[in-house]
């Protein structure tokens, strides 16, 4: 009992496939245009790939090799997007009862089910209202209840909290955490908290290909892709292990601590280090300190009582005092230096 999802869409340069166990929630991560929404559209039956296979609980929903392509309404797959899209002409209760009614459940029973799901998401008091008067957070709660009431075998969530105010996201995330607990679901998100709190597993897409797939906590503490690293707030550089240090892909060498399972010489590796492990100087330090880079500061971003300096590839967290002393502004050149003991080196699977 599981989901198997695979698709190749040449037009969007997407070629990816993964599986989910029943009851598991997977967070699909990646840059805009990486192909996340394309995969969801294939699963929901809104996009037909050149080649693709979607099998849910053993039932093929799409199998281009064998000419199977079920229409969206026969798939049992509900898609929740960042826009709640509540039917404007129906009350909240009738919106939620829409799924059951479409299955042929009598009106009164459908409304009872709708009331049940509305109370599950804490929106029962909105039952009699029209969607027009709801806030973004309320509307999204109702949309969640509506999707659940349709009793989907698979729930797809495409950045469900992206268009909401920051104040309402924690409560809604808590609600989603409750409803996703035992459901087969795929959630597309840009938020590390969503991945951490809602998903059991993380799949990272880059340019339409899966570059990382694993347990959420492992991926976020030991990222192997640039996107996961940025999401987790750590620096990541890729290269080749020589047995002693890392030959970086874009030139230069890096000394760090090899982590289990130990890489062999010639293995592809990634080196990660935290932004607050970076020491910042105005000029490259004299002598031959290991792991120093000349960088151009692109951006300064307040981060609690620290300032995060962003360059094209790396981030460093420094105090406000340091920024003033070094006179750092966007466009200035500086030197980043990291101790080898602060750098973890992982073998790429």
């Amino acid at each position, binding site marked *: 009992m599981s989901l198997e999802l695979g698709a190749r869409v040449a037009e969007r340069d997407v070629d990816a496939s993964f599986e989910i166990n029943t009851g598991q929630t997977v967070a699909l991560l990646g840059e805009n245009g990486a192909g996340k929404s394309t995969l969801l559209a294939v699963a*929901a039956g*809104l996009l037909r790939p050149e080649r693709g296979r979607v099998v849910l609980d053993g039932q093929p929903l799409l199998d281009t090799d064998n000419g199977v392509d079920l*229409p*969206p*309404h026969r798939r*049992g*797959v*509900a*898609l929740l997007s960042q*826009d709640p*899209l509540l*039917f*404007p*002409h129906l009350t909240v209760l009738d919106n939620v009862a*829409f*799924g059951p*009614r*479409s*299955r042929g459940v009598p009106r009164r029973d459908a409304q009872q089910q709708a009331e049940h799901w509305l109370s599950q998401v804490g929106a029962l008091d909105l039952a009699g209202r029209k969607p027009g008067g709801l806030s973004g957070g309320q509307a999204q709660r109702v949309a969640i209840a*509506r*999707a659940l009431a*349709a009793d*989907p075998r698979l729930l797809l969530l495409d950045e469900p909290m992206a268009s909401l105010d920051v104040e309402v996201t924690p409560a809604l995330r808590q609600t989603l955490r409750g409803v996703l607990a035992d459901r087969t679901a795929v959630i597309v998100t840009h938020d590390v908290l969503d991945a951490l709190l809602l998903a059991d597993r993380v799949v990272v897409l880059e340019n339409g290909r899966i570059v990382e797939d694993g347990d959420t906590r492992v991926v976020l503490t030991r990222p192997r892709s640039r996107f996961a690293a940025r999401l987790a707030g750590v620096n990541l550089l890729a290269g080749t292990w020589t047995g002693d240090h890392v030959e970086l892909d874009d030139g230069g060498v890096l000394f760090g601590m090899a982590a289990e399972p130990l890489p062999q010489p010639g293995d592809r590796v990634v080196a990660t280090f935290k932004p607050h492990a970076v020491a910042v100087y105005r000029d490259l330090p004299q002598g031959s300190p290991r792991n120093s880079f000349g960088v151009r500061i692109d951006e300064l971003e307040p981060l609690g009582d620290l300032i995060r300096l962003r360059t094209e590839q790396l981030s460093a967290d420094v105090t406000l005092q340091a920024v003033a002393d070094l006179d750092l502004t966007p466009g200035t050149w500086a030197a980043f230096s990291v101790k080898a003991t602060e750098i973890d080196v992982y073998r790429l699977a």
Partner: protein
Amino acid sequence: MGRTRTVGLPGWLYVPALVGAVFVLLPLVAIITKVDWANFGTLITSESSKDALLLSLRTSAATTVLCVLLGVPMALVLARTTFPGQNVLRSLVLLPLVLPPVVGGLALLYTFGRKGLLGHALEVMDIRIAFSTMAVVLAQTFVALPFLVVSLEGALRTAGQRYEVVAAGLGAGPTTVFRRVTLPLVLPGLLAGMVLSFARALGEFGATITFAGSLQGVTRTLPLEIYLQREVDPDAAVALALLLVVVAVVVIALARPDRREP
């Protein structure tokens, strides 16, 4: 209370706008000044006037129903599907909008008339359409159908398919989606299209007189009656003309789309 201010409308623009408005309204005023009020009641309640008015209302209502039955599916196919030659087909369907109605009437005659394309087949089935009330309805439908199709297709495109996609994801089949989502969402557009069709049918003259003739109580609608009376009894023509204006205004006022809605 503040008032929003229109920015960027040049002052001279009001002059042609006013001229245009006067151009439309003045003839209506002119007709009202010509009405013989003393005999107005008698003029519009004569046997032939009542026949014409009732026939017009009946045939226009039938036309509107026919337009809905044929036009709604047409608009959906045009707005929601793609097929080769679709743009050509759309242009051809809209042809009656620009075609002189007399030409439409002739075309209908050569289709449904005794010597027409379908004439023999209809004769075999003992159906005679030309110069019957049915012919009036067909002539009116021919010219009114594009109005419904155009306004509904526009509404369908504006509404988009996002809600329909959501409904399908909730397990609703195409017919349920159409009945519970598509139709309610485009209802204002559909009503506007129905009003336009009804109004167009009410004013139809050329195609009707060519295809259906002018037989009192059977095919002589209000516009035909007015044209006829203009020669014999100008006072009656003016009174009936005013009646037609009033009916048209009432229809438009009843179904005026609410501008406040998004």
